[in-house]
């Protein structure tokens, strides 16, 4: 795959703005950055770009290849992805379906900025107008002269053969939609004029990273214009664009995309519950549960600019009637969603007690304190829990009808008498047992096999008596906001934080705390930082840190190195 390399140099503009005092000083510790990446578009990104460029009436048919999750994020895994033969066929079918719709009689008037002299013949001028405009948005940069002339020629040659200008245009557009320039987010480095010997992303790569980070889509025209004018190379110009994007309603889409990734919502595609045990749970519930959590998060963090840690304790959420039937709550809205606030004595609080987390991290026929505990530590605390050894006997924990062990707590207590299991279970189980009042489908319960469920426990030195105490303890865990900063940065950068960025992340976490754990402000700080766009040079790239964190007497490898 031959990728065009491009360097945009705008030293003059940058220097002028800095000298003029317009740029805010980045007082964060310096970093050496990480490698540039080549990331395949995810399915949501692909769909969003098509919607942004051609409108929401264009259907995106077909299926996409599954993504890879690495270091807790698909955003990181996409840098490891390629396109297999079968996958390319799907991309091709999808591209042709999109292109045909764009040029059809319904859409051509609004999407194609000109009319051909003859609809039955080539018109290179008109084709160039359309393809250059669409290409800039699809490739996230202006097309090179060579790229444009190739596409115009393709459109014209096809029109000649087919006797149809629009069919030719469709053929050319379909080719662009399967090109690596579109399917892959290519980042390009350039020398940093402000730091001798160091590199940074070039303007269009910067715009691309910024846009996918904040909006989960390709840069819009204004951002591309800013990149083209060199405005992103100045602190003030970059801040102006970041402020514009953070003020936009589209920020919610970016926040939703981040949390969908962080919370592992792609796992719902393979999630199933035993309908005999959980008849209320079906694919509709699965979809609505994700939506509930994303609405809860965007309402708290974006609409109300709330404290990130409150995602564990907030009593405000949104419900529709389907979810109301599982939560046991009346929902007045006949269709759609309505806000709901749990009363203070309700065991439900925060996203850990929502159906999405509870059902995603359970077995099809029973809850799993172990899986839930592991998920909480890995997703929210960035702690890596080792996989179980291969020779573990799970018979005891799987036997939910064992008359000697009525509850999951009793079964797990017996299970961890095996030395090989005890270490990890002591880390996971107390956390997961705090959520045992909720079954595999997220339904509330107070007993299991007629035995009362006890949810008291301890997490990282903090004890709690019940689920309410548990979520308050998670809320106050220092590792939670630190992990979040790490996750958010990795998501935007498309790679795990490098060892040389640990100090910078630590600084950002302190800033995060000092500003009340406001997520949009954290996104602003990351998006306007130099570190976010710093590119490591050969020899300075460092692998992921893997230090140990002493945690309640047990050493757990962490991803952050904190």
């Amino acid at each position, binding site marked *: 795959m031959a990728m065009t390399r491009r360097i945009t140099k705008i030293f003059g503009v940058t220097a002028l703005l800095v000298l003029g005092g317009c740029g805010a000083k980045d007082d964060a510790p310096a970093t050496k950055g990480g490698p540039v990446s080549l990331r395949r578009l995810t399915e949501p990104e692909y769909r969003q770009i098509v919607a942004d460029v051609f409108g929401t009436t264009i259907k995106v048919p077909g299926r996409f290849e599954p993504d890879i999750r690495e270091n807790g994020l698909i955003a990181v895994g996409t840098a490891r992805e390629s396109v297999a033969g079968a996958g390319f066929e799907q991309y091709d079918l999808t591209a042709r379906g999109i292109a045909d719709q764009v040029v059809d009689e319904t859409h051509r008037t609004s999407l194609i900025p000109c009319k051909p002299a003859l609809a039955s013949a080539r018109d290179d001028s008109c084709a160039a107008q359309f393809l250059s405009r669409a290409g800039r948005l699809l490739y996230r940069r202006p097309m090179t002269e060579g790229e444009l002339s190739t596409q115009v020629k393709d459109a014209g040659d096809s029109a000649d053969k087919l006797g149809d200008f629009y069919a030719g245009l469709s053929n050319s557009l379909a080719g662009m939609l399967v090109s690596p320039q579109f399917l892959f987010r290519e980042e390009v480095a350039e020398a940093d004029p402000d730091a001798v010997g160091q590199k940074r992303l070039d303007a269009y790569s910067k715009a691309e990273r910024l846009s996918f980070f904040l909006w989960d889509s390709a840069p819009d025209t204004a951002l591309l214009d800013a990149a083209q004018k060199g405005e992103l190379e100045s602190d003030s110009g970059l801040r102006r664009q970041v402020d514009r994007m953070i003020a936009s309603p589209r920020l919610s889409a970016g926040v939703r995309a981040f949390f969908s990734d962080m919370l592992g919502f792609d796992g719902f595609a393979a999630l199933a519950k035993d309908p005999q045990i*959980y008849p209320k749970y079906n694919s509709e519930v699965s979809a609505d549960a994700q939506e509930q959590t994303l609405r809860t998060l965007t309402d708290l963090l974006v609409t109300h600019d709330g404290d990130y840690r409150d995602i564990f304790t907030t009593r*405000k959420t949104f419900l529709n009637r*389907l979810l*109301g039937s599982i939560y*046991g709550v*009346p*929902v007045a809205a006949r269709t759609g969603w309505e*806000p709901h606030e749990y*009363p203070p004595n309700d065991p439900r609080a925060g996203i850990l007690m929502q159906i999405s987390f509870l059902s995603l991290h359970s077995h099809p026929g029973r809850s799993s304190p172990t899986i839930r505990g592991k998920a909480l530590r890995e997703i929210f605390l960035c702690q890596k829990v080792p996989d179980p050894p291969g020779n573990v006997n799970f018979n005891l924990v799987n036997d939910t009808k064992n008359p000697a062990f009525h509850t999951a707590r009793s079964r797990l207590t017996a299970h961890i008498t095996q030395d090989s299991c005890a270490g990890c279970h002591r880390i996971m189980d107390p956390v997961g047992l705090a959520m045992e009042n909720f079954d595999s489908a997220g339904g509330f319960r107070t007993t299991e096999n007629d035995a009362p469920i006890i949810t008291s426990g301890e997490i990282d030195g903090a004890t709690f008596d019940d689920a309410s105490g548990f979520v308050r303890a998670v809320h106050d865990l220092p590792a939670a906001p630190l992990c979040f900063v790490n996750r958010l940065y990795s998501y935007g950068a498309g790679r795990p934080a490098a060892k040389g960025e640990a100090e910078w992340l630590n600084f950002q976490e302190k800033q995060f705390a000092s500003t009340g754990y406001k997520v949009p402000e954290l996104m602003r700080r990351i998006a306007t930082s130099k570190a976010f766009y710093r590119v490591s040079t050969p020899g300075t790239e460092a692998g992921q840190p893997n230090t140990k964190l002493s945690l309640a007497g047990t050493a757990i490898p962490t991803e952050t190195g904190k």
Partner: protein
Amino acid sequence: MTWLRNTLRLGVASALAALIVGAFANNASAETRGYVVSWFGVSTYFGGDSDCPDGLNPMSTEFYHRELIKLGYSEADATRLLKDFPGNPGMPDGEYIKIMMTRGDKKHNVYAFPETEVDPGLREIKGKFAYGFNLDGKVDSPISFIDPDTGEKGVKNQLYRTLGCVRSFRAPPPAHPTLAQAQWDVLRDQMPAWVIEISGITDSQNSDNVQVEIHRATDHVTRDANGNVRPDMSFTTDPDPRSHNVLHGHIKDGVLVTDEADIHLLADPFLQPEYRFTHARLKLRLEPDGSLKGILGGYHDWYALYWSYASSGWVEEHSTSLDMPALWYALRRNADADPDPKTGQNKSISTAYEVEAIPAFIIHTEEKNDKKVSDARKAPATRLQANMGGGLIGLLKSLAVLRSLAWQ
């Protein structure tokens, strides 16, 4: 939701006043429970074939063959015409269908004009037992049944007597009869849900004074992962006053029985536009799992019931083996109430329908800016409930609901 929030804002003061009054004026433990009907079908008692000493009614192939012979076809022709049963209307293999549709006078549609055929005779229930109510107060009348569970005498259920020996109305419990199940499946998915609200429950085993409301909702039922009606869903009542029924009753030993009243249920325009029961009552057991199971009994216009089966003509007749002209005559013969002043012909027939309902939240929005939400079960401490007469705890819970609904 804007209109609802505005309504709530306007109605909060009056609602709070009502709540405060209600909190002290009513029994502190009174509950309101909501349900959605999950099963509704003709009540039958499966007592084995001894109920039908004359035998079960013939299958449609049998009575079609009989009718062809009556019409003068030879045995060989009748056999040939039915060779490809059921066949297709308008096609060669459906030649017999046209003949059957006008089998009375070879001119009129026999389903619309059943009197064009001489009564073919429908075999009827002659057993002692049936579910229902003693609607006329007479214990020892010739048409009286005995309730097989309670031993109560004087039960009137002439609809069961009429249909009980038709094969598609027979099924050993817990299975539902095929035709009743098929009808309910269509109704359930086609029509907005029926909801039941019981208020004034002071004790789920014994409450002397309860109010039972039956409404049509504005929403259809939804199904769970197994295809059954999903419990604990919220339903908004239809403001159409025709769909509101308010009954008075009592609960004794866990069984709710309502006083005699008329009950009007709007149903599906295609299959059964409405049910209009007169002198009706409900008998519903409050099951430990939170559901209701029992019967609705009353008199009903027998021709409306006939037409609910016959309107589909041959389609329903051949598939359910319900000989429509025979049914018409049997219903007319067994009708036992509401005589026509001129002819003396009874216009109504005693009936009983099985009713099952599962917990649901019922939301009233049509009543003077008030908002009332009934819970499906005895509200646990963690569940919101707005119970206008629910005592001080109910008051506090109601405030929580109002606040949560107004929050945005």
